[in-house]
């Protein structure tokens, strides 16, 4: 029954509906959110402007008018119930890709690696090994264009964020916190623990596909050394 999978449907003002599929960060819940969002987006519902998944909910944005009709909340609730019913029967099909992200761990690119290792009671090498072998996925993109929330790492990675955020992190910085990884697409402020950096560009406004990653993508972090980082970085800059 979809009723069991849908925790709540709540109006977020008069032009947005939030569908909660869970209360905490969890792989099965996250996959259902991605599946629901992808299905809704593919349906191209007239009057619906945006569908955005987060770890536990899906937001549906709509505009008033003839297309969505006089009772948008009822109309969208019915639609969501139908899709979640199919998902409940085991049909979460994601249009996911498998993306390799080269990462130069530690050193000047990962100034927090040693500190993170201490907190996790591991050596830096063990942290790197645990990080790049963990199976993970993009559950959400937010905060800035192309800024991914990647998870869900095992419990050893459940570090809270830094108490004092940094005001400017270099583009490509890989941060971890709360069993998740993120990569800063541009120079941005951030409170995550920086353990490495990727030479890849995560956002290009002029490209047909403006972000390197899309919600649902499977991620493989591939360790690279300083020289490989420099080579890849130079290649990226040539493309741009």
């Amino acid at each position, binding site marked *: 029954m979809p009723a069991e999978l849908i925790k709540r449907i709540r109006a977020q*003002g008069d032009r947005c509906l939030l569908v909660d599929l869970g209360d905490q960060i969890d792989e099965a819940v996250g996959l259902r959110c991605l599946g629901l969002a992808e299905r809704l987006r593919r349906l191209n519902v007239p009057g619906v402007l945006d569908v955005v998944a987060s770890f536990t909910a899906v937001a549906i944005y709509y505009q008033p008018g003839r297309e969505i009709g006089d009772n948008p909340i009822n109309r969208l609730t019915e639609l969501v119930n139908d899709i979640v019913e199919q998902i409940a029967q085991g049909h979460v099909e994601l249009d996911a890709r498998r993306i390799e992200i080269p990462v130069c761990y530690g050193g000047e690119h990962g100034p927090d690696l040693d500190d993170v290792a201490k907190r996790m009671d591991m050596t830096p090498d063990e942290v790197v090994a645990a990080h790049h072998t963990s199976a993970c996925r993009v559950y959400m993109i*937010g905060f800035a264009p192309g800024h991914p929330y990647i998870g869900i790492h095992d419990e050893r990675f459940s570090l809270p964020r830094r108490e004092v955020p940094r005001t400017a992190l270099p583009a490509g910085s890989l941060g971890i916190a709360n069993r998740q990884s993120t990569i800063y697409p541009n120079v941005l402020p951030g409170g995550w623990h920086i353990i490495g950096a990727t030479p890849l560009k995560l956002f290009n406004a002029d490209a047909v596909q403006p972000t390197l990653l899309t919600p649902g993508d499977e991620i493989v972090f591939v360790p690279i050394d300083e020289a490989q980082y420099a080579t890849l970085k130079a290649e990226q800059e040539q493309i741009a």
Partner: protein
Amino acid sequence: MSIIVKRPGLLSSFQDNGRWGYQHLGVSVTGAMDVQSHQMANLIAGNTQDCATLEITLIGPVLTFTKPCCICLTGAQMNARINDRLAPRYRPLIVRPSDTLTFETASEGTRAYLAVYGGFDLPVVMNSQSTYLRAGFGGWHGRALKKGDEIALRSTLTNDPTLLTALNERIWNQVLYLPSTLGQHTGRKSLVRLIRSDQWPAFTAQSRGAMVSSTWRVAIDSERMGYRLEGPEIALETPREMISEATTFGSIQVPRGGQPIVLMADRQTSGGYPKIGTVASVDLPILAQKKPGDEVRFTLVDVEHAQKLDRQKADALEELAVSLANIRQWLNDARANTADTANTANTANT
């Protein structure tokens, strides 16, 4: 080139109805702060609602036109002038080559909108011409206007002075009926309707009471991303950790510290703070016309009623569009017949 920026003003950026369809990639919607004024400027200038307009903030630019065109100004009262003549708001106005448009500091409201018939010739980035100031793309080179910028128009009017004078007279004599639901909202009016969030009951009784009984002052660092409200401290009964979720235009977040922030056009796509409510869409234009130091008060409305009002406004805009058919026809007939304006039918003539 058709418009030369002699002075840029405080913050003049091109905005449309917003960059929708990319929030799942973390791309902010941006778009006009006062969407109603933006849409009305477009309609009255003979466009569809969604062409980009120039959003002008508090201190206006000085713009010189090099081609004849039809413009409309809406939103904040900034005593605009074309050369020495006062240029009324909410009217289509014909400008001629070498005419200069100037503004005084806003005397009522904060943001004025300038639409030009046919639209500004700006690239479409991710389905939108809005300037994403924080990320530096969209609109005019991803930034606010600077002195010396020269902006092209998608279509201009005939150079024939006799035809232009006849068009001017015809347009000037046309009576415009603005539906009452699209009335003025840039004045002292400050009562804004608020839809309670699902987290409303988790706030203290005192906070809930204060939200609707207090007068809130728009703080100094309020801008296109969000408005900070100064007033009594708002607090949850028990503080709790939130998982980041999607945000909307008008969501009122309450970070630790208890000072509410209303999320505006340039809001980030997600946020992890508790939300006490959301401003009803119909009243967002009132808020968007406030500047730091102005005051607002809130009154509760249920979501069904807010949606009804929102729908009525959408319908009124459609009615307005229908009632302007004459003007669109006259402008279309008076378009300059040059090759570089041949592909503009979609923007100008729907």
